[in-house]
């Protein structure tokens, strides 16, 4: 029985991670897992005709063996996200705040309009924004952008504001792996700059 047919749409058959259809049929309740799995899902009739319980809840995070595994510490976050624009919490806070205001203007009770995800996210980014001032946020990004950081790395640093070089490397292990920072001093300068912004915010 498919509990929520509409979610089928959320999984286009060309997901980033390939799904090996023959993997794991052992003792599994997803009898339909097989080469016809996706086909079956995108054809609602077939999916609906599936015996009850055959498809219950499942997900498609099946990963390929080995290296393709996701690991943010090694910047393995998938092509799509590696290229995408990453947002620091403080930036998200600005965006969501603005959107919330808009909604407020449109409706008296915006809380009923927004999704729980929105609400939770807004609470979260407000709580964990290191910088509140939009100018400061801009400056943070600017400073970090000088250092050939990947978007993801940049945002982790911006979010967590490590105080020491050691901490920075622990938070973003990929800093060390590539040879962008010849020495720790470069990192230290960067961290100092960030803390200055915070100080003068």
């Amino acid at each position: 029985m498919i509990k929520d047919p509409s979610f089928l749409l959320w999984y286009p058959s060309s997901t980033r991670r390939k799904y090996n259809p023959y993997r794991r049929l052992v003792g599994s309740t997803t009898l339909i897992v097989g080469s016809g799995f996706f086909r079956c899902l995108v054809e609602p009739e077939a999916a609906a005709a599936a015996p009850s319980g055959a498809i219950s809840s499942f997900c498609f995070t099946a990963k390929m063996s080995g290296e393709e595994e996701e690991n943010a510490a090694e910047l393995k976050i998938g092509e799509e996200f590696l290229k995408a624009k990453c947002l620091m919490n403080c930036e998200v806070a600005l965006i969501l705040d603005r959107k919330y205001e808009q909604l407020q203007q449109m409706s008296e009770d915006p809380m009923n309009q927004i999704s729980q995800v929105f609400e939770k996210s807004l609470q979260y980014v407000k709580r964990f924004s290191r910088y509140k001032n939009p100018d400061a946020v801009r400056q943070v990004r600017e400073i970090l952008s000088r250092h050939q950081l990947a978007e993801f790395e940049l945002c982790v640093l911006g979010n967590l504001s490590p105080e020491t070089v050691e901490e920075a490397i622990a938070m973003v292990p990929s800093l060390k792996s590539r040879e962008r920072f010849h020495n720790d001093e470069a990192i230290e300068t960067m961290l100092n700059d960030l803390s200055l912004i915070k100080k003068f915010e």
Partner: protein
Amino acid sequence: MLTRAVRTSQPVRFGFPRRRVAQRSQSLLGIRVGIELRFLSGILRYKTTSHPEDKRGNRLSRKSKSPEFSMPRRRDDDDEEEYADDDRGGKRGRFIDDAAEEDDEEEEDEDDDEDEDAYNPRKRKQRKGASMFIDQEAIVDSDGDEEEEEGEDDFIEPGTDLVEEEERHVHRRPFAAEEEEQEDVDALERQIQQRYSMRSMHGDFDEEATDVEQQALLPSVKDPKLWMVKCAIGREREVAVCLMQKYIDKGSELQIRSAIALDHLKNYIYVEAEKEAHVKEACRGLRNIFSSAKITIVPIKEMTEVLSVESKSIDLSKDAWVRMKIGTYKGDLAKVVDVDNVRQKVTVQLVPRLDLQAIVNKLDGKEVGKKKTILPPPRLFNADEAKEMNIRVERKRILHEDYEMVGTMMFRDGFLHKTVSTKSISTQNVQPTFDELEKFQKAGDEMDGGANALRNFSTLLANRKKGHFLKGDAVVVVRGDLKNLKGWVEKVDEENVHIRPKLAGLPTTLAVNERDLCKHFEPGDHVKVVSGAHEGATGLVLKVEDHVLIILSDATREDIRVFADDVVESSETTSGITKIGDYELHDLVLLNDMSFGVIVHVESEAFQVLKAVPERPESARVRLREIKAKLEKKANAQDRYRNTVSPKDVVKILEGHAKGKQGPVEHIYRGMLFIYDRLYNQNSGYICAKAQACVAIGGARRGSDRNHGVAPLTSRFGNLRTSPGFAQPPLSSKPPRDSRGRQRGGRFDSLVGTTVKIRSGSFKGYRGRVLEVKGQDVRIELESQMKHVTVNRNLITDTVSVPSFHRDSSRYSMGSETPMHPSRTPLHPYMPRDPGATPIHDGMRTPMRDRAWNPYAPMSPARENWEDGNPASWGTSPHYQPGTPPARPYEAPTPGSGWANTPGGNYSDAGTPRENSYASAPSPYLPSTPGVQPMTPSSASYLPGTPGGQPMTPGNVGLDVMSPIIGSDGEGNMLLPDILVNVCRSGEDSLIGVVKEVFSDGSCKVALGSSGNGDTVTVLPSEVEMVVPKKSDKIKIMSGAQRGATGKLIGIDGTDGIVKVDDTLDVKILDMDILAKLAP
């Protein structure tokens, strides 16, 4: 090649100690050892099994021990021991073929032996008659190299092992020792030493004979034949030994080559000889072979099979895990502590299941009154405890081990040691669970500390299933040079697994023996347990402790501990046990006390049910039998602002303990919503709330609808005005009887909000919407007159809701239907009246509708409903059982073809009876209640699923909708007296009977026999089935306005019956399904 042989031969002097080498090595291996006789070196080694006296030795060496009596007639180039014999002058008939040997040593041997030429096959053949062997052959697994060498070491320093010494004596016993023995030993020692030293210089023994080489060793026509000789049962071994003795006595006179008795073959022995006459000659005079015994030849092709033994038949070794098959301990895990192959007995170690009280009673001589019904739980034996209960515990020392004896039961370290037949244990697919092993380990730890983990692991390996590794598995090497190397399985090739190492700089793939590998997981992996107690559970790996994983179960969010080997990586999310009986996790169930709730947790024998108490989260432990039924019907409810809430809508709770929580609605029943909030940690995230305490919001599909709800009590005319744009959607696929306004009345009544028709009185024929139900009175807003009237409840029928639905769709459907529906026309005037008020409008807002837009989803909810077909509720409404074959609605679910489908009278009828009988329910869609109409939910969930289509059947019943015929009332789904039914009770043949009386709960009294003169029985509605009338039969109309009327079936047209009604003499076309044959 599968295995390598460790082969030993025995000189005539059977007590020859050399045998120990092989035995030792085998017992050291402690693992599967099979007997397999092969034509390895061109010598057909026939074997007799060891003498009964041998059994102690046997025990130690496991099944490997079968002295063979064979007569080498031809030697192989590689048969090193044999030429070693020759060196020592083995012509006298002494010869040695002893000590472990590997057939794949061939090459080294050749290299080393300068005399090789001297041993060409022919030459050897000439010498053949001179020797005689007792051949002992055993197979060990190819990884046995070290062990063999260990055995060798042992041999070099003899006598260090008491047991072995013992064993040696045992073996000697049956045979007379001779003086030369010691000499033999020394010679052999030297020889073996030499060989092994050579071997150690050559590191690689892994070259194995190819298939072709093996083929070459098979017997051919030139070889002696194998004859099967019948002998006395149970004397097989004796006969073989007799033949051997005879050979010893007579020497080459006896022209047989070998004799063999097989343990598993009763009544026969095999003799190898060139001619049948030779066999006869040899057998002559033997007491246990009858002179008349027939001697048959074994075809060449089958010769090898005679002496191949399937290794699994004797796949039992010490420390192996087995399961008991019978008795008190049935299914329990046991550990083999001793194997007696001869007597086919196994001593196993078990966690005892003792009922001390019962023992006390027994010892006291009291009669044990009742048979033991309860299986005592497994618990380690505690001598002190037993003593306290005055049970005598004796201490006994058997074979250097201390045992505690209670009666005949032997205990050691709290475990029961039990000797059972090999037949009563199962050795295949024993998959000890973590818990079981832990039990064993606990006691074990006290004994020998931490060394257990590894042992467990190795025993687990032995229990591993075939095909354990699959491509893509992450594995780690656990033994050998590559230990700790991680990689991924690329290919599995029998026992070898090709892995792609993680480490750079290594070859792309490495072949590793399966046994050296273990699955490997990292914390954070999502896995599924594929065997053991937690089978089926999935979760995230929290921690890896050697071969044990701690997993956070997806379902329970609790830790479970499993073996890495029992787990596969999987993306699937399920929970362990999620189902008992028909009830599954997250099902909405009706309990016996008529309360209901959602199953939030499934335990092994009970459920945790979150009860429908909106004030506080109240969950109860409920056993299977306390659950009455599963509530599967889709229902709707209205939120605070009168928005229709359907399952899957996201709502937010506005008041109560869970205020502020939100999530999708999973179940709706009697105005209660069960909301799943994934962020809520209790009750699997389920929250129960009153529908009115919630507001639908739009994670996915709501939101703007709320406008409609702003003025909750606005009349629908108000609604009409607010959304003129929606007034006349050309396609309408929304619930025909929408629940809009249903709760407008002071009390909840499923009737409220439905469109009904007044059957009699001054407003007869008018239709209107029910505003309120007050006792027997119903306040109706007439559609044609903008007027509220109050009529008696019994004077209305709500089937008209379908016409109103019709009306909406009629734009499309008229064409084809008109000719058949003369009565339809009058309905049209209503049309323009309240289009906005009709369900159309709501249809737009319902989430179902949203789904209807979704091209991928539309069918699903509907189909689901049908596919799953709730047998229970079908059963409860016998009347409709025949009347509404589930297939029908499928006939035209095609989108866009709605015009062809007329809403069936069934559907409309369907709603009615229930609504009457469950007037107090806010929703008409009550599932699983007696009398509930199975069709009804379909109209709710099915309809919206079909975009633009009229999902209704092209049912002719539809005709009736318009005609006054319809208008059934409360009893709609009941049987009627006097009709013929088939009573089908489970386990009995169906019997014909006549319904005599129908009770309010749907059950009825049926008089058996076609004329009703048999016994009278009371049957449940689900057990009866109406008899389908044939042409010219007298019938009774079971539903519609003319329910109860009798008539004659004057013709059948497909699913339609042409009926001449008795009273009016009208001819009607009615669905066959609503016609029942009348008792004559």
